[in-house]
């Protein structure tokens, strides 16, 4: 038999590895060897159906067939069932592309994640990579900036500032040196899109950064990645070397006169570094103390030079926009939220994972239809949207659309698109206390409302939980929250009251329970 080896895909995404994908890959290799079958095991990214991980796919004449969740001990029976040619087995899910979870999505940024070998330049090119960069090289910097503006792309880190306007400011600034900085300090609990993108399609963000560099005349760039992501770090280090070898970045971008040198830098376990000025201080080697604005980083950013600081997902949206046109991107979405949003569904949910959709889908569709409700099977009680600084919503508020303005109108925020589901065992007073505790641990300490307010907040919550003068302490809690909101220098102190007040306003019964002794901590 000289048939071509069967291609079998086993994810190398950290989430898949966390539930045993490495052992599955090894079992497939040894089982195939024992049976004398020629297989090529491709380590792809994750398709984002995380409850089905490890999700193994087999390439057949009719398309890729998915099996999952596969444990190493399932592998012999999969071979017995002829899974290498798509055979029937209890774990067989059908064609990956035809699965409901995949069919419902509009994947632009994540179109290649889980599909390709993440480090293969030829795979990347064969699936549409490089096209945005090639088109950008035929345009002037001003034209690239106009395309990004026209797409309506807004910063995907959470603030939602129009990306094109930021680029225009840097484009128009005059300086010897400009920088492109990618904020990959994805510290919000409930978010993992940046991680998945780096582990599944690392060249996309690199290409987006190269386009930004050409647009504004920057020659150096940094990806600031959190240290909690060792797998993404290894992938990015290898991808940058390969991207240089392929001419995507380096002394001459795709043979042009543009140079763009890119490095990945690791953070060191400080949540505040997701705030852009704090991130810049950290890149400069300092304590990550937030800077006052102005001056804007676009004018005086890294080492005082004009700097684009964008989130991973903002850069990653750009190649598609350049390739398909600004209008095609803007055709997705609603209101002032254009394009698609990679939503991350986690916490106590049956089917969690990554869902990329145009803005406008409701939380209920995401959590109930796609997520299937809670993992515990108990009723949904609270949903936190937008990370640790985002609001807690009730099960009755889930008909809100995923849209910057719609969430802001109900005093919530979209943030980086993370959704965390809680069942009815959650104690919302404890969650409010945690919001302050987290802020106290992670505050950079520069401004008083955040540094002192967070600690006072923990104390006030302790008094409320233990039943000490509750009405008076709730008044103090509201007063403290107002002060932190109004007077903090950045979003850390300014938004910590959002989860606190949403818990208090939406779940007042949890702030009036029979007093409990504090758990020993």
């Amino acid at each position: 038999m000289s048939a071509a080896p069967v291609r079998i895909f086993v994810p190398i995404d950290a989430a898949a590895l966390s539930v045993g994908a490495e052992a599955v890959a090894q079992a497939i290799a040894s089982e195939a060897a024992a049976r004398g079958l020629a297989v090529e095991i491709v380590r792809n990214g994750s398709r984002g159906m995380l409850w089905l991980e490890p999700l193994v796919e087999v390439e057949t004449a009719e398309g890729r067939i998915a099996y999952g969740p596969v444990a190493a001990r399932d592998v012999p029976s999969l071979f017995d069932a002829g899974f290498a040619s798509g055979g029937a087995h209890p774990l067989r899910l059908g064609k990956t592309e035809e699965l409901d979870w995949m069919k419902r999505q509009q994947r632009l940024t994540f179109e290649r994640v889980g599909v390709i070998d993440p480090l293969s330049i030829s795979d990347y090119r064969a699936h549409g990579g490089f096209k945005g960069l090639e088109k950008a090289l035929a345009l002037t910097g001003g034209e690239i900036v106009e395309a990004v503006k026209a797409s309506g792309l807004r910063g995907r880190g959470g603030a939602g500032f129009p990306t094109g306007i930021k680029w225009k400011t840097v484009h128009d600034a005059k300086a010897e040196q400009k920088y492109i900085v990618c904020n990959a300090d994805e510290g919000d609990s409930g978010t993992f899109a940046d991680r998945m993108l780096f582990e599944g399609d690392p060249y996309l963000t690199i290409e987006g950064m190269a386009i930004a560099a050409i647009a504004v005349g920057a020659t150096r760039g940094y990806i600031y990645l959190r240290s909690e992501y060792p797998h993404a770090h290894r992938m990015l280090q290898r991808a940058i070397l390969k991207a240089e070898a392929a001419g995507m970045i380096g002394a001459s971008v795709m043979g042009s006169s543009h140079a763009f040198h890119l490095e990945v830098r690791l953070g060191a376990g400080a949540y505040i570094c997701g705030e852009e000025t704090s991130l810049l201080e950290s890149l400069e080697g300092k304590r990550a103390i937030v800077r006052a604005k102005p001056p804007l980083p676009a004018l005086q950013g890294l080492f005082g030079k004009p700097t684009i600081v964008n989130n991973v997902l903002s850069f990653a949206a750009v190649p598609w926009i350049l390739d398909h046109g600004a209008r095609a991107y803007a055709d997705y979405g609603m209101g002032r939220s254009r394009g698609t949003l990679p939503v991350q569904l986690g916490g106590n949910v049956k089917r969690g994972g990554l869902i990329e959709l145009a803005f406008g889908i409701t939380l209920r569709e995401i959590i109930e239809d796609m997520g299937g409700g809670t993992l515990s099977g108990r009723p949904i009680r609270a949903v936190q949207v937008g990370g640790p600084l985002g609001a807690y919503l009730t099960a009755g508020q889930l008909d809100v659309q995923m849209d910057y303005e719609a969430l802001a109108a109900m005093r919530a925020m979209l943030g980086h698109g993370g959704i965390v589901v809680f069942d009815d065992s959650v104690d919302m007073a404890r969650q409010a206390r945690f919001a302050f505790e987290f802020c106290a641990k992670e505050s950079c300490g520069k401004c008083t409302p955040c540094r002192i307010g967070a600690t006072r907040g923990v104390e006030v919550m302790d008094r409320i939980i233990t039943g000490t003068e509750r009405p008076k302490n709730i008044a103090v809690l509201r007063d403290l929250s107002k002060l932190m909101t109004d007077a903090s220098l950045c979003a850390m102190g300014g938004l910590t009251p959002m989860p606190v007040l949403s818990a208090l306003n939406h779940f007042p019964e949890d702030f009036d329970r029979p007093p409990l002794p504090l758990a020993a901590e």
Partner: protein
Amino acid sequence: MAEYSAWSEDSARLIIAGLVHLEGATLPILHALQDEFGYVDPEAVPLIAEALNLSRAEIHGAISFYHDFKTTPQPARTIKLCRAEACQALGCESVVVELARTHGIAVDGDQVGDARVETVYCLGNCALGPSALVDGELIGRVDAARIAGLCKHGRAHS
């Protein structure tokens, strides 16, 4: 299991010299020292300051700001247990309680044998929590028994 070298000023100087050319070299140097020795020895502070033409206070300030950097020798294994919201929703606090009650292991407390369990906020595995990071490997759907086993030097993935 990490195997760290004993602190050596000579090898620290070599590590620093290999990285001083970087823009904003402080964090890369601190990470490299910690990778080698398991911590950043206070004796490294003047070496870094001299190499980067910064004050000792600036280097000490950077080390003390970031949760990652340790200034004393560390156990061979650090288990980072996620205690952020998504893992809270899946009962990570019960894992913490059970570790203490059943296994006598205090999170953020003393070393157990040659291991220690630390709190971390988010490992990006929010749909498969509770999660832990051990020797650079991510573990999903973790429970107290698994963590306790890892403290006795089991492999992260068997």
